[in-house]
């Protein structure tokens, strides 16, 4: 079999070997999510936003005005593309990102302290509530940051920066015994 992007995860090299049991602060690396970028055509931003928020099968993350990242844990990339094409029906451009981004899920009591070492955003629940999402800079890497729970954050990074971001996050979390593994 040819080893190419489609059968090799960007962090295979980093997470080789027997996984350590997850600690209190844990970094889970996403495996096989379907992701797509939705870009609303001019003038259709509000309509597309309403359409996206009306569906519960996938998570919608704000990226920029008229631009969202859609993530599905269950669907295939092709299935998500079809689903979004049908939903937006010409109001938006859909771009598959499943192989282009890597999902990092950071959970545990010290996540905010860990992220504070790299992200210049106020992550207090008053300023950045659960469900909030935005593009931000983590160290020198532009990521899409989402708060999915009180102490759970997800970072979506371009695949070519995944190894760098992984090393950065592990350094940021060393003081808090951050462990890492592929998500189950």
């Amino acid at each position, binding site marked *: 079999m040819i080893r190419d992007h489609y059968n090799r995860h960007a962090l295979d090299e980093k997470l080789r070997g027997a996984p350590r049991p997850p600690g209190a602060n844990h970094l889970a690396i996403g495996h096989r999510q379907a992701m797509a970028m939705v870009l609303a055509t001019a003038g259709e931003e509000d309509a597309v936003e309403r359409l996206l928020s009306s569906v519960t099968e996938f998570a919608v993350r704000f*990226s*920029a*005005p008229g631009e969202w990242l859609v993530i599905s844990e269950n669907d295939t990339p092709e299935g998500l593309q079809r689903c979004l094409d049908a939903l937006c029906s010409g109001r938006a451009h859909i771009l598959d990102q499943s192989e282009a981004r890597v999902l990092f899920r950071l959970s545990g009591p010290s996540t905010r302290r860990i992220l504070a070492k790299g992200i210049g955003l106020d992550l207090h629940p008053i300023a950045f509530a659960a469900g909030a999402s*935005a*593009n931000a*800079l983590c160290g020198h890497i*532009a990521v899409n940051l989402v708060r999915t729970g009180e102490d759970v954050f997800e970072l979506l990074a371009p695949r070519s920066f995944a190894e760098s971001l992984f090393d950065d996050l592990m350094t940021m979390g060393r003081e808090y015994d951050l462990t890492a593994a592929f998500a189950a």
Partner: protein
Amino acid sequence: MASLITCPHCGVRPKEEFTIRGDASLVRPAPTASDEAWHDYVYVRANPRGRTLEHWQHVAGCRRFLVVERDTFTHEVHSVTDGAAFATENGR
């Protein structure tokens, strides 16, 4: 320099997320304008002490062009508006 910029789309962000793309107060001359007018537009820049109007691009965030009015002396940021909104307001 101002260290926090309130992006109208993303909220309060550190200046490292932005790139400054130059003076926003310049108005592009008509294509038939004189060579002097075009020379001024392309090359001649003021270096003001006080309020300036600049294009900032939020490259690590929403990637929109913003118009930031800030003070080069006190480092105070007076206003941040989206570039497209600024252009329509000013009839450009």
